[in-house]
């Protein structure tokens, strides 16, 4: 869908060259939610702005849907941009226009007739959950609602790709989640390819299928979100994974657990992209004569299922515990008995 080859962008400032994007190659598949994560200054914004040529590349190629964006002249680019929606951290709505007219703006640009505009805008207002707010001005909306207008506006011309530049960074956690849900909804309903950049692993975890970690203008690690979560290779990636999984002091707490719970059996359960065995604990206590104490853990949901680790204590007859462990081993949940540090 999007193929990027040897892309680079050099900014020439008075006293130095900044290689904001450095020889970057990447393929993004159709219908995918592709996240790019990196710390401030990694070059994320520059990267996403290169994708619709708000920034002109210093070198390399970008094609979207087999059209070479980098080879286009101004007019061709204008037409191509109508098929690439973009939403922004600070929404960038026209305050002089109502919600309705803001969403209608890209349709005016594309030369859509007035009647069609009206139908399409009303459709979009419903899609993003702003029914009844069409006549409000942006200043009368909350941040989350403004971003919904931004999304509706970006979708107006039925784009093939949606670019999101820190689309939730100005929002509180709850509003962030509702906007992310909306993006997933749109991705599923419309089969839209979404490229988003963020510095929050939470955003990647919640909605992305693929993730690329960016540092100093380069992609240092890339893959399936779950793989990256499970086996982060680079230091930056580990730091980002810890952002969501928290607790780099796991070992310390395991020590505490071992000291405190001397009876029965301590188990470590590892959920990896789990979809079917999320009710495992209640299953076990129903099927076997064991009491299950949950001691410590963190499970988080990704687009590819649940992921995380949980420490539990099984109390009961020795052979009943063994049978329970065997049962768990037969599922896709990984189990480790008496885990050591």
């Amino acid at each position, binding site marked *: 869908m999007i193929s990027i080859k040897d892309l680079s962008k050099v900014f020439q400032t008075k006293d130095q060259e900044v290689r904001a994007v450095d020889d970057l190659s990447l393929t993004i598949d159709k219908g995918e939610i592709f996240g790019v994560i990196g710390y401030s200054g990694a070059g994320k914004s520059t990267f996403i702005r290169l994708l619709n040529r*708000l920034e002109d590349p210093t070198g390399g190629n970008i094609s979207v849907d087999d059209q070479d964006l980098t080879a286009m002249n101004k007019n061709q680019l204008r037409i191509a*941009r109508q098929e690439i929606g973009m939403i922004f951290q*600070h929404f*960038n709505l*026209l*305050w*002089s226009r109502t919600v309705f007219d803001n969403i209608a*703006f890209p349709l005016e640009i594309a030369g859509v007739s007035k009647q069609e505009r009206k139908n399409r805008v009303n459709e979009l207002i419903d899609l993003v959950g702003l029914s009844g707010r069409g006549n409000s001005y942006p200043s009368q909306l909350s941040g989350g609602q403004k971003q919904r207008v931004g999304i509706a506006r970006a979708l107006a011309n039925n784009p093939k790709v949606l670019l999101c530049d820190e689309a939730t960074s100005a929002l509180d956690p709850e509003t962030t989640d509702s906007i992310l849900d909306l993006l997933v909804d749109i991705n599923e309903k419309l089969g839209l390819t979404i490229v988003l950049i963020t510095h929050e692993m939470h955003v990647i975890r919640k909605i992305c299928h693929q993730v690329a970690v960016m540092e100093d203008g380069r992609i240092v690690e890339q893959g399936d979100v779950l793989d990256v979560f499970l086996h982060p290779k680079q230091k930056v990636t580990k730091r980002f994974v810890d952002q969501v999984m928290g607790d780099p002091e796991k070992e310390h707490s395991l020590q505490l657990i071992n000291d405190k719970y001397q009876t029965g059996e301590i188990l470590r359960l590892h959920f990896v992209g789990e979809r079917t065995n999320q009710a495992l604990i209640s299953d076990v206590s129903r099927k076997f004569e064991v009491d299950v104490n949950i001691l410590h853990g963190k499970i988080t949901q990704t687009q590819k299922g649940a992921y995380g680790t949980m420490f539990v204590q099984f109390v009961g007859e020795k052979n009943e515990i063994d049978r329970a462990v065997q049962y768990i081993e037969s599922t896709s949940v990984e189990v480790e008995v008496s885990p050591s540090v």
Partner: protein
Amino acid sequence: MFEQLFPNVSVEDIITATNETMFMTLISVAGTFVLGLALGLLLYLSGPGGLWQNKGLNWVTASLVNVFRAIPFIILILLLFPFTDFLMGTIRGPKAALPALIIGGAPFYARLVEIALKEVDKGVIEAAKSMGSKYTTIIFRVLLPESMPALISGITVTAIALIGYTAVAGVIGAGGLGDFAYFYGFQRSDFDVVLICTILIVLIVFIFQFIGDFASRKLDKR
């Protein structure tokens, strides 16, 4: 009552003078708005980071604006006599004041337009670009509407300056309330005439200020 307070004032003459002042003000405000807007847009668009970024064009426009803003209005009128004569076929009366008024007002307004446009959020312009707008679309559907309240309050300030200029123009025979106050009031020592002219000019200024403030507030949806 009126005749006792203002014994030397001929109502008919004062109405004519007021009409002349209104005529000069309205036409020159309209002309200044158009010319100033064009110059202001040119300044902004050719400036650093603008859509038509162009050092040469920007320098020429800025110089023109600065030079004409630096010339005192009374001298500008004298300087423009040949031009006015050529354009209007006369150098007397309200019509003859128009070229000087517009050429004096436009550079002033152009700077206010430039300031107003600079206040427009860069992100919004970027958003319009990302949707594939043409530059003309960005100018007419983004830049101008988004800066409209500031453009209106700018033209209000300029209009009030122009009302002052019409009075100055009056002294060299342009007609209107300034002319009337000077020739019929001051020179004949009929100070009631000066007074009534003052009151009427202040009233006109207030009306413009009121309309301008109202329109600017009404348009501002921020």
